[in-house]
């Protein structure tokens, strides 16, 4: 069943990709092939292979339970927050927060998580910024 849905999504993707390709505005200075041909070939391959996936599905994979899916979703939200907050609150705080969260969700106790998160953040800061000289996001406090 998973593969059938996947195949249908793939076909939709191929069709919309083809439409988007047809909508590309041609420049008046074009070569013999133009910017549309290659995307259209790719869309065809994408469509045909999706059709095969939908028609001849493999055994369905074991999807995680709802709880695990929420877990992954939450991790994605934390990572997005991390990406957005990084330039605002600075590298050390943002990283400590994100690493603490991930360590906690992977099974450490609350206090151990905070300690690990802080160590990870400071460790990366020391190694990558102070030793290797990589420029990291600066917060209001300068780190």
């Amino acid at each position, binding site marked *: 069943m998973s593969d059938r849905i996947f195949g249908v999504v793939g076909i939709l993707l191929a069709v919309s990709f083809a439409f988007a390709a047809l909508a590309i505005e041609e420049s008046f200075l074009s070569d013999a092939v*133009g910017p549309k041909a290659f995307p259209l070939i790719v869309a065809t391959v994408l469509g045909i292979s999706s059709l095969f996936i939908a028609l001849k599905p493999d055994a369905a994979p074991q999807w995680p339970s709802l709880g695990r899916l929420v877990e992954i979703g939450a991790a994605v939200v934390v990572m997005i927050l991390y990406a957005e907050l990084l330039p605002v609150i600075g590298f050390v705080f943002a990283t400590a927060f994100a690493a603490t969260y991930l*360590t906690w969700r992977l099974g450490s106790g609350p206090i151990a998580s905070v300690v690990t998160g802080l160590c990870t953040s400071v460790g990366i800061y020391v190694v990558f910024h102070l030793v290797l000289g990589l420029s990291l996001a600066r917060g209001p406090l300068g780190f």
Partner: protein
Amino acid sequence: METFASLADGFAIALTWQNLLLALLGCFLGTIMGALPGLGPSNGVAILIPLAFTLGLGATPSLILLTSVYYGAMYGGRISSILLNIPGDEPAMMTCLDGYPMAQKGMAGQALSLSGVASFVGAFFATWGLIFLAPQLVKIALLFGPAEYFALFALAFMTLGGVSSTNQAKSAFAAALGLGLATIGVDTQTGVPRFTFGEVHLYDGLDFLVAIVGLFALSEVFIFLEKRHGSADADKSKVKVGRLTPPLSMLKETAPTMMRSTGLGFLAGVLPGAGASLGSFISYSMEKRLVDKDKTFGTGDPRGVAAPEAGNNAAAGGALVPMLALGVPGSGTTAVLLAVLLSLNITPGPLLFSQNPDVVWGLIAALFIANFMLLAMNIPMVGLFTRVLMVPPRILMPVVAMVSFVGIYGISGSSFDLLVMIGFGVMGWVLRKLDVPLVPIILGTLLGNTMENNLRRAITISNGDWFTLIDSPLSIALWVIAIIGFVLPLIIGRKVKSQMHASRDQEGSVAD
């Protein structure tokens, strides 16, 4: 003799303090990454690419660092196979079959050192193979025009699927997805934006480094979150390592096995799309057929440890041949290395050997140096690495995630790229669940633009005649091989692959 002169020049380049230090660092980090279950050579190299850039390393030093990581990970994968019966990366899964039984018999130290020697033999001779085979391949490649290159890229994509997935439709899907992603951005020939939806960040196209780190490293974090590997690290310290040198008789007994496996593994590596997993698999099965007269394979036979290790390390060297000579990588990790070269504005392929001989020969010399370093590191110091295995994933995986973010942010300094990377991470997780191989996606995003340019150049040269693509004997031959490579696995590949997967541990990491 020209070869040896070039090699000597290569050593002159590689033997600077900076490069030696980078090789040492790469070998060390690589062995650790190979040894830790879940971090394989491709994500190991992927995580370190941004670091190499932001450190401002030149082309040769970056490649030395990253190929040392590559070779190191190939060595390191065996450690957890032998001690824990969990392959550290996919190529090492065959080593579990005899390595773990040896460890249970109290011969863990001997298994580790023997496999270290086997890895060395495999990698050492494969590097020689690289030296002699690559220039020959370059001579052929110099005959290629745009039409032949287009056929060659098609060949790479069509044969890649045969081994990297059980389902050809899924690998074709992955390749097309990758090629489609590559077309995002301003068209290089006419200057019109394609598939950018007015988003200015997309005009430059998707950075393939962002895609690679997201697909490989972040998806691994999601897999761990899904399974929460807390239980896997319970009884690690119980295995006694024991004596750390293999007896001479054992070395003598396994020497023919090592040599045969090296040859086979190297061939498997050179073939496009096969890579190290196949190298170790066919070496093991071959040895089992040839020498397993007393049915001792699978119960701790030293030859069963030597064969896959020599095979996968030889394949790692072999996979560098098509990557350097043709610009078409033979495996996931070499695809990642290709990304490095492209980002450094170096185009691999036949011209690399004439235009940047310092890069090629410096790299090859560094491979020899790295090999000796790895041998030294992996036999007396293997105890150090076994201790690293005790770091639980709940501490390790957040570090991996954070280092990925740091690396990508370090390159571009934009949050937009981080968001794209998270998107690729989620996509990688879903696709891995659906058993869609990730390597063709990476290869597609890497090679898409070159492939399209060659297509358009070929047709422009022939004034719009599409039949120019199958006009020369060379391109016809390439198309025929491509079609055979695509169809043959449909007939026999399924069997080989299911045998390979039957012996695979449930936590499948991405193909080498």
